[in-house]
C-alpha cells in the first residue's frame, strides 16, 4: 500500500482540529512549569539544607525516570493514594512537574551569572526581598533563559503526544483512530508528525524573534 497524498490531505483537518488539544495542554503546562519552576528556584535559593535535600531527591527522580512512566504514575498510581485525576489533569500535572524541574535547573544556572553586586545594591537601597526578585533578578533571569525555555516548550509540545496513552484524544490518538479505521498508518503518522513539526517550528521562530528583541535590551 503506497503513500496517498490526497488521503493525507483529507485527514489533515481532523488532525489539526485535534492539535488544538495539544496546544491547549502545552500552554497550560508551560505556564504551570514557569510558575512552579520560578517558585522552586526561589525556595532553593533560600538554602534551607533539609528542604534542598528533599528537592534534590525529587529532581533526581524526575531527571532519572522516563516521562512516560511519570505520566503513568500520575494516572494509574495516584488514584491508589486517593488522588483520582482525569486523564487531562493527570497528564498535565505529570508533564508540568517534569518541566518545572528543568525550568528550575536552567534558572539556577542563570542565577549564577547574575552579579551579586546588583543584589547588594538593591538591598542597600532598601528594596525588600520580593521586590529584588520581581524587579531585578527575575526579569534578567527570564531574558537569559529564553533559549532554554523555547527548547523546553518544544519538548513539552512533543510530550503532550504521550498523553494519548492515557486516553487523551490528541493528535496522535486521533491519528491512531484514523489509522485503525482506514488501515493507512503511513499517511496518518506522517500527518501527525507534520502537525507537531509545524507547531514547534512556529515556537522556534517566535523564540528567535523574542531572543533578538531581548538581546537589544540587555547588557
Amino acid at each position: 500500500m503506497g503513500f496517498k497524498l490526497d488521503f493525507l490531505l483529507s485527514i489533515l483537518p481532523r488532525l489539526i482540529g485535534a492539535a488544538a488539544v495539544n496546544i491547549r495542554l502545552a500552554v497550560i503546562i508551560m505556564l504551570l512549569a514557569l510558575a512552579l519552576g520560578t517558585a522552586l528556584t526561589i525556595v532553593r535559593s533560600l538554602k534551607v539544607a533539609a528542604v534542598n535535600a528533599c528537592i534534590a531527591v525529587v529532581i533526581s527522580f524526575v531527571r532519572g525516570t522516563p516521562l512516560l512512566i511519570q505520566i503513568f504514575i500520575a494516572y494509574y498510581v495516584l488514584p491508589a493514594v486517593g488522588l483520582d485525576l482525569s486523564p487531562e489533569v493527570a497528564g498535565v500535572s505529570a508533564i508540568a512537574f517534569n518541566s518545572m524541574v528543568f525550568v528550575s535547573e536552567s534558572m539556577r544556572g542563570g542565577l549564577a551569572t547574575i552579579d551579586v553586586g546588583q543584589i547588594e545594591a538593591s538591598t542597600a537601597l532598601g528594596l525588600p526581598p520580593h521586590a529584588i526578585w520581581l524587579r531585578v533578578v527575575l526579569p534578567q533571569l527570564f531574558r537569559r533563559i529564553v533559549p532554554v525555555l523555547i527548547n523546553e516548550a518544544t519538548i513539552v509540545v512533543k510530550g503532550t503526544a504521550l498523553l494519548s496513552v492515557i486516553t487523551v484524544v490528541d493528535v496522535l490518538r486521533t491519528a491512531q483512530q484514523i489509522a485503525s479505521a482506514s488501515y493507512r498508518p503511513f499517511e496518518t503518522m506522517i500527518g501527525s508528525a507534520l502537525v507537531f513539526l509545524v507547531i514547534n517550528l512556529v515556537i522556534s521562530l517566535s523564540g528567535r524573534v523574542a531572543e533578538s528583541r531581548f538581546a537589544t535590551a540587555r547588557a
Partner: protein
Amino acid sequence: MSATPVLRVSALTKRFHGVIALDQVYLDVHAGEIVALIGPSGCGKSTLLRCLTWLEQPDDGFIEVAGKPLGRELTPGGVVRHQSRRQIDALRPQVGIVFQQFNLWPHMTALENVVRPQTVVLGRPRAEAIRRGEELLTRLGLADRMDRHPHALSGGQKQRVAIARALAMDPALMLFDEPTSALDPELVGEVLAVLRSLAEIGMTMLVVTHEIGFAANVADRIAFMDQGRILEEGPARDIIAAPKEPRLRNFIDLVMANRRHDNPGTTIDTTE
C-alpha cells in the same frame, strides 16, 4: 559640635571566621562634612562601609544614622534589640552607597535605574520619581544619556548614574567605596568635581579611598584605618602634613613614593 552627627559609629566590631575585620571602630560624621577613610588594603575600610549599609552584620557595636539606630539598638533597659529586615530596609534609603563597580541594573535604562527605587521603596508616584530622576541626571551632566542602558555608558557615566540613584532616595549620608579605582586615571578629576558639587549642596559624605592625594583634595577630615581600627583622624591637612601615628606615616611615605614613581606629575594639593 553639639548637633546630632549624621553618622555615629560606636565600638563597631566585625569578625570573619574568628579573624577580626573591624575592631572597636568609633567614627562620627557631621552634617555637610566629607570624611575620607584611608588605609592599606585589607584594613577594614570596605567592611566598615558594608556594615554601615547592613550588607554585613557587625558582631558588636552600634550604628546611628541621623540619630536613629540602624540594625541593632540599645533599649533603655540596657538590652540589645535586633531590628527586623523591614525596620532595617526602612532606614536603608537614608544611607546612599556608591559601589566600586557601581552595580547598576543592566536591564534598565539610566533613568529607570534612578526612578525604580523611588517608586518601589519610597512609594513615590512615578511622575514625580521621573521628574526627580531627570533633574538629578541633568545636574550630573547626563541629560543626553538618560535612555541608555548601562552597557552603553562609560565608567564615569555609570558612576554618576549610581550617584543619582542613591541621591534620589534623599539620603542623609552618602558612602563611596573607592570612587576612583574602577575609572581611568584621567577621570579622577571628574569624580572630584562631582563630589565637590555634592559638598556644595551640603551633602554629608564618607569616602573610602586608598588614594591619599584624592583624600587630601576632597575631604574635610581624614580617618586612617589599619588592622580594623581607626588609628588617627583629624583635619585633612594635619593628617597629611603631620601624621602622628607611625603606621600612618609609613603609609603616607609608601604611597607618596609609589606616586612619584608612577606619575611624577601628580602632586598633592593641600593648600585648599
